[in-house]
């Protein structure tokens, strides 16, 4: 059952990833990318990491794809089908390199046998189902699966506290820098926001 589900999800994900690359219409390609993000979220669910799945949907499907769409709407002339957008000379090497990387990764994953005390990736057994009374208190993995939100919170607040605060600073820095790069003084309207009514002269740069 799970195997079938996995195959369905994986095929969907691969198909949408391919579509992202091959479709020439940018908005459609971005939509396919959102589909791929969703497939990844489904894979997270299969790995019993529903917290991550929810994050994936929330951030990637809900936020990043919107950013992509807005980015597409920002650039002139590429929303539609633009035949000149992809030089075909690079297509064949691109495909070959992509397939080679894919083959290497696939081989690497299947060939992995486990290092030292680590078990091989293929040998990790299906996780135990929880049932009442059979819960071993303190099984960390089970605990992490069952309430991942809380476990992630504890980890962020203890072991990864530097990384956590740094992530906050990083986001702020990215915001500041992006605003500074994107924002232009002449983009701003003249002072006096309340006076702006639609009949004012249109903004000069674009509609």
């Amino acid at each position, binding site marked *: 059952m*799970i195997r079938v589900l996995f195959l369905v999800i994986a095929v969907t994900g691969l198909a949408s990833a391919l579509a992202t690359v091959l479709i020439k219409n940018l908005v459609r390609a971005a939509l396919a990318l959102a589909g791929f993000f969703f497939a990844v979220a489904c894979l997270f*669910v*299969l790995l*019993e990491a*529903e*917290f991550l799945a929810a*994050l994936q949907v*929330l*951030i990637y499907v*809900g*936020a*990043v794809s*919107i*950013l992509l769409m*807005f*980015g597409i*709407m*920002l650039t*002139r*002339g590429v*929303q*539609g089908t633009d035949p000149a957008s992809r030089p075909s000379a690079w297509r064949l090497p691109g495909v070959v390199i992509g397939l080679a990387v894919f083959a290497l990764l696939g081989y690497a994953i299947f060939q992995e046998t486990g290092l030292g005390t680590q078990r091989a990736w293929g040998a990790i057994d299906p996780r135990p*189902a*929880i049932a009442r009374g059979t819960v071993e208190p303190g099984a960390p993995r089970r605990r992490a*699966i*069952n*309430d991942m*939100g*809380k*476990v*992630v*919170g*504890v980890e*962020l*607040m*203890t072991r990864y*506290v530097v990384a*956590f605060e740094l*992530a*906050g*600073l990083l*986001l*702020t820095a*990215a*915001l*500041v820098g*992006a*605003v*500074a790069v*994107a*924002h232009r003084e002449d*983009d*701003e*309207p003249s002072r006096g*926001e309340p006076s*702006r009514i639609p009949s004012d002269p249109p*903004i000069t*740069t*674009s*509609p």
Partner: protein
Amino acid sequence: MIINNYIFIGLLLLAAIGFALAPLLVVRLIAPRKRSLSKSEPYECGVLTVGETWIRFRIQYYIYALMFVVFDIEALFLFPWAAAYAGLGLFALVEMVVFLVFLFLGLVYAWAKGVLRWA
């Protein structure tokens, strides 16, 4: 087991899609279909559409989307913190205050920079 829950959600998803598509199927079966040129024109207040439709938009939209992504991610850091807060105590509160200060100053920056002014 978590996957069981999601099997229901998957079924719900399928049912919702079916729920959306079924009436369209009915429409296809029973509704009239008469294509005509004027019917398939875009409706722009009755005037013929001029120029390219997929126009370029102002950068302001993009900046809003950007701020949304940044704040969304920062807000999502708060969820695990809030869920684990009970067992963490003061230290976590201090860390979060620092984090929130970063978040807040980012907002203040954008505000003072005039990015939040919709024009």
